[in-house]
């Protein structure tokens, strides 16, 4: 049998040795990211949890990062793959800056580049196990898009990943409107994040909200949401339950 070179060999779709070279399942994962367009740009929220299976192992993982001058990237899914993507983008932005001309890659360009990367990896049966949210503002144009590990990508006024799609987006569909103020946008995001905190098992109560406008990126300091657990239905939940044990 051949040696497995450190670079992935050509014919490695099948065969036991080849499996060590491609992603099969995620290990340390981040949960939902939620984002929306508002009056001045994009607001994005993500908690700081990195789960190791069902254990809430890491509680200070920054899952949103600025990219270049004009974009903000939020990721859920495998954290190490997110770090790899950040390295790809770092190189991309570096070469873009090295041209030193008046042109720069905007959020649309970065989103499409990421789509190409994710889709090509999927085609090689070696995906980057992430769902990415890419938002930004350039020359007054606001852009918000999503791309996931199978290469599905789209743009919208509000996006979410993972559980956020099921719990947050319905809220956003009802309550989002054009030209939200900053305060209203934050309130809306916090509403979504609170629902996720109650109902998503992998959510932790430590989140950051990031904003990107024409001026640049600001990522808030981590903070926690107030929660209420004193509903009477939560008290003594097993009372009256049927069952032998």
């Amino acid at each position, binding site marked *: 049998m051949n040696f497995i070179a450190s670079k992935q060999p050509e014919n490695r779709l099948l065969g036991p040795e080849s499996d060590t070279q491609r992603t099969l399942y995620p290990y340390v994962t981040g949960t939902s990211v939620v984002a929306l367009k508002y009056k001045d740009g994009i607001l994005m929220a993500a908690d700081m949890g990195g789960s190791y299976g069902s254990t809430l192992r890491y509680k200070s993982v920054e899952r949103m990062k600025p990219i270049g001058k004009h974009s903000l990237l939020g990721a859920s899914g495998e954290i190490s793959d997110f770090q790899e993507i950040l390295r790809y983008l770092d190189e991309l932005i570096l070469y873009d800056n090295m041209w030193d*001309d*008046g*042109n720069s*890659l905007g959020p*649309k*360009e970065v*989103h499409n*580049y990421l789509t190409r990367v994710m889709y090509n990896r999927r085609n090689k049966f070696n995906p980057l196990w992430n769902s990415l949210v890419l938002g930004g503002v350039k020359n007054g144009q606001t852009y918000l898009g999503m791309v996931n590990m199978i290469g599905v990508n789209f743009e919208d006024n509000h996006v979410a990943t993972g559980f956020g799609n099921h719990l947050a987006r319905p809220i956003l569909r009802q309550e989002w409107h054009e030209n939200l103020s900053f305060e209203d946008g934050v309130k809306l995001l916090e509403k979504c994040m609170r629902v996720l905190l109650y109902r998503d098992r992998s959510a932790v109560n430590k989140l950051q909200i990031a904003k990107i406008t024409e001026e640049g990126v600001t990522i808030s300091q981590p903070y926690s949401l107030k929660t209420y657990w004193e509903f009477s239905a939560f008290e003594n939940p097993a009372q009256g339950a049927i069952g032998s044990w």
Partner: protein
Amino acid sequence: MFRNQYDTDVTTWSPAGRLFQVEYAMEAVKQGSAAIGLRSKTHVVLGCVNKANSELSSHQKKIFKVDDHIGVAIAGLTADGRVLSRYMRNECINYSFTYESPLPVGRLVVQLADKAQVCTQRSWKRPYGVGLLVAGLDESGAHLYYNCPSGNYFEYQAFAIGSRSQAAKTYLERRFENFMDSTRDDLVKDALMAIRETLQGETLKSSICTVAVIGVGEPFHILDHGTVQQMIDAFEIAGEQEGPAAEPDAAARQEAAAEQGGSTDEGVAPMDI
């Protein structure tokens, strides 16, 4: 230029520090039929003289659309020009596919120049024998570049290459200060006048020239012969009034030049031919 013992190889320097093969390649550009380009803040116009070999044949294509926002006019070995246009189209389409965004013309021009440079430093290659006038748009507006076989590129307000281009250049030198604020139609008119200068007395008709326009909100396209002939007719009649019309122009130009003195200098590069 006379033959000498240092001109056989592109990889041989002369004692005076010249690469003769590269200079001979630039001569090939001068032998091709004329191509001119000029630009305003928002539009670029390319024009060229199209002389067919005989009445029986069609004329060679010298203006190529590279993308919606980039076009090129060539002078010299048209075969080399065609190959380079294909390269440019490929680069544009690859960039568009990856980034969903048009390739900034300034970057394409650098890639083209780097490609030309390679041919000046390989013993098994020869320099491209074609000069390219690249017209395009990017974030900072409309641009016109000239790419040499030497691998150099320059940005221009207006330029002309090919045979008898000096006549066109002289015409453009007189008028270029006004180009930045010209309207699209005035720019096309100036292009046609510049082409006429290279014809040295021969009548300008749309069958012997090609004009192409690109601008903000106007994708690159070659004007059809009917439109071109209309524009020629429109100003041929006004041609006799060129003399008195030049007087108010001169006054306007002085004012415009005073305001634009600083900015137009940036767009002008030293004419190296």
